[in-house]
């Protein structure tokens, strides 16, 4: 298959690649860049474990083909902490025990970040809606909702 050239920014770093156009962003991140924090749970866009931000929008990376990130910016869970300082969401997820098995966590964090970047003061319904595409089998979502709410308070301060 003929490779296509793309320019992109992933976790604040500029890249220029030649890639097979049929590769998904999920596989590209995990297998080519070693960014295994983004998880594969269903590969059909149902579970949300592979959620990353594409120009600030939460997307299922299993449904994005790599050429689609050309000229755009990707943020994964590995890029959430800045200068080894954790993002308030990461802190609050740990404080609220919103992390159980942790497999949905990277995707949850990215959906939550997409929400808070646009809506710094979401109510519970808005939080629940924002993570409704992220399946979690462990927590019953309660502590995740609490953690996102708490992080929004902290970010405002």
């Amino acid at each position, binding site marked *: 298959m003929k490779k296509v050239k793309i320019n992109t920014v992933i976790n604040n770093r500029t890249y220029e690649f030649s890639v097979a156009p049929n590769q998904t962003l999920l596989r590209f991140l995990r297998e080519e860049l070693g960014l295994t*924090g983004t998880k594969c749970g269903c590969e059909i866009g149902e579970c949300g474990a592979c959620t990353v931000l594409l120009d600030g929008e939460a997307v299922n990376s299993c449904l994005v083909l790599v050429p689609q990130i050309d000229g755009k910016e990707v943020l994964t869970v590995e890029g959430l902490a800045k200068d080894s300082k954790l993002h308030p969401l990461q802190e609050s997820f740990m404080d609220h025990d919103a992390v159980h098995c*942790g497999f*949905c966590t990277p995707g949850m964090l990215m959906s939550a970040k997409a929400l808070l970047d646009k809506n710094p003061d979401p109510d519970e319904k808005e939080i629940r809606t924002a993570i409704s595409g992220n399946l979690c089998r462990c927590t019953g979502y309660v502590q995740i909702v609490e953690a996102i709410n708490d992080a929004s308070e902290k970010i405002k301060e």
Partner: protein
Amino acid sequence: MKHKIIGKGERRVDALGKVTGTAKYAEDFNVMHQLYGKVLRAKHPHAKILKIDTSKAQKLDGVEAILTANDIPGDKVFGVVVRNQAILAHDKVRYLGDGVALVAAKTKEIAEQAASLIEVEYEPLPVISDPEEAFKPESIKIHGDDNQFVHHHVTKGDIEKGFTEADFIIEKKFKTQFIEHSAIEPEAVLAEPAEHGGVIVTGSVQNLFSSRRSVAAALKLDLNKVQIIQSTLGGSFGGKDEVMTAMCCRAALLCMKTGKPVKMVNTREESMLESYKRHPYVLYYKWGCKKNGSIAAMEIKCIADGGAYASMSPFVTWRSVVQATGPYYCENVKTDVYAVYTNNNYTGAMRGFGSPQVNFAIESMMDELAEKVGKDPFEIRLQNGFETGAVTATGQKLDHRVSLKEVLTKSAEAADFLNKWNQYRTPSTSPKRKGIGLACSYRGVSLGAEGTDAAGTIVSVQTDGSVIVSSGITDMGQGAQTQMSQIAAEVLGISMDRIQFLNTNTSRVPDSGPTVASRGTIMGGTAAKKGAEIVRAFLMKTASEMTGLDVMSLDFKDNYLIDANNGERLASFNEIAAECFNKGRPMYGFGWYKSPQTSWDEHHGHGEAYFTFVYGVNIAEVEVDTETGKVDVLNFVSCHDVGKAINRNSVLGQFYGGVAMGLGYGLMEEFDFEDSIPKQLNFDEYLIPTSMDVPNIIPIIVENEDAAGPFGAKSIGEPSNELAAPAIINAIYNATGKRIYEIPATLERVLLGHKLTRKGERGSAKKEEVLADSCKIRPEGR
């Protein structure tokens, strides 16, 4: 006693890697030159294998090995109880998930292509998809000469006499469904050749020691040549046992054959196709009751669909037979629980382990009894519920604190149960009706008389005072590592940040049995306490010598050695650790805990089944749309006596997660088959609760410390999951006056009283046996 760390909501010891993406799950392990393994699975749910031709596949460039059952050097089958599960099918396939051949190739794509080139000739056999069909003498046999492979029974008193004394009889049939564990992480392993012979398997394995036994037997290796290392596990819920054993065996076989590392990862579709499910039960409950609301006799028969292999069915059904009467007094009991083979996916361990099914029946029956004698659901349970000193159906005297009435009362108050229950009973013309329902349970802790119950934990203090803890008990996301760390930290008087917990490795920690049956904290935690106490004794002896003070007047607190009398800091924990090392004393404590004795007489169906029990109550408040059949859960109360909450946040997490999974069981989840062919293989069709489905949950932690557990702790993992469904079903009854006898209570079942089944031609609907009445019309007088 005032604790420093026990009872606090400490952060999990494994949380940081999970929020930064550095935690390594099975699929995240890769090595140079690894091959990709692929399984060719069955084409028919039941068929003889006549011929397997791998010649075309062998010729494909990039293929390194193709194996069939004939290539397995050792045992071709495995099984913890009944050894009949095929690593690769050799004579016939028994369900669609059966593996027939294995491929190892240089890329995933080549492996897939090679698998598609393997030609298998089958002779299809009649398919048994209905467990009651499997019983019939004329039915084709799936293994040996009998499809029934389990019959457990319990008898107490005289059932005939009980029914004679009864004023009336309630006799009902209930059905439950297959459900999928739905851990968000699918199964994966990496098998590597070991330096000095044997194999190292890293993967998403729940019960490493049983998987290791099977790998060793299949490869004809000693146990010390098979090392299984647990990767961080992305959920299990009982689901990463046998399916992982099969995957470990297959990857290890390919690895030994090729001498190269082999990676295997299930897609979600492969995972749902192959993995085992929660047992569907058909339950026949017949109670002889008295006008005053007491129960004179219970006759119970349950049939479990075991699917293609025995798996944990003998143990799952044993828990059912022990707990089938619920926590209620009844002098005359006869319970029979059977498991049969079918060509459906095999069924095994899933959070609850035989209790969610019987609890659905028991708690529905209890509400029916209340209705018949004109009492409310709360009162009828208070009247019949066990108290301390009660004797169970198996003849066991409950000599721990039986807190059933405490949890019942506390939750009813928190939910304002009686007021709402009375209010919602009042007939209404509104299409949307509210209802409230409750359910109780009692549950035997740990394995009980199923088998040997012991576990080991290692606490190793380093020369700088930091601590490494490891255990044969595994963490799947439930928080076992954190509980054990908190216990060790409490005993050593250090902060949690001084502890590093290692993932379980079968070559470095003792066989501690499986991490199942909500035994992680009580078994691994007690072992951690013992291990930490051993180390503490050496540290204290050193501290006493250093200070000249008696051991009794010293303590460790907040990373310091203190004078216990006035709290004065005498030295840092680190200094004591360094000095202990200098004195040549061991800083390594191995704690081993063997559970208190249990007993079981299978012949009479009697015994001290479990060494202690836990008690819980769920209350659900729902809104039923009687025009669509849709049920929304509005509010929920979950109350459990956990003995002692080691980590408050983790306990709450189990409460919430258990309710969410129980809500899925009650309302939406069903792994459906058509002639033993699964009808859904991914989350687009198998629906689990999302953040929009789970209501706010009021948690009530009750703590009656139990002598059997560390700092009084018992269990919460499974108790939290086993009674949400009946609470919801009882709430639907309160709202509509109609009872659902088959779960899940989908829109069709609530609205029409039966499920719509697609059969043959698309669009045609078959009306199944009607178990539930329509909720459209409320009977007169209610």
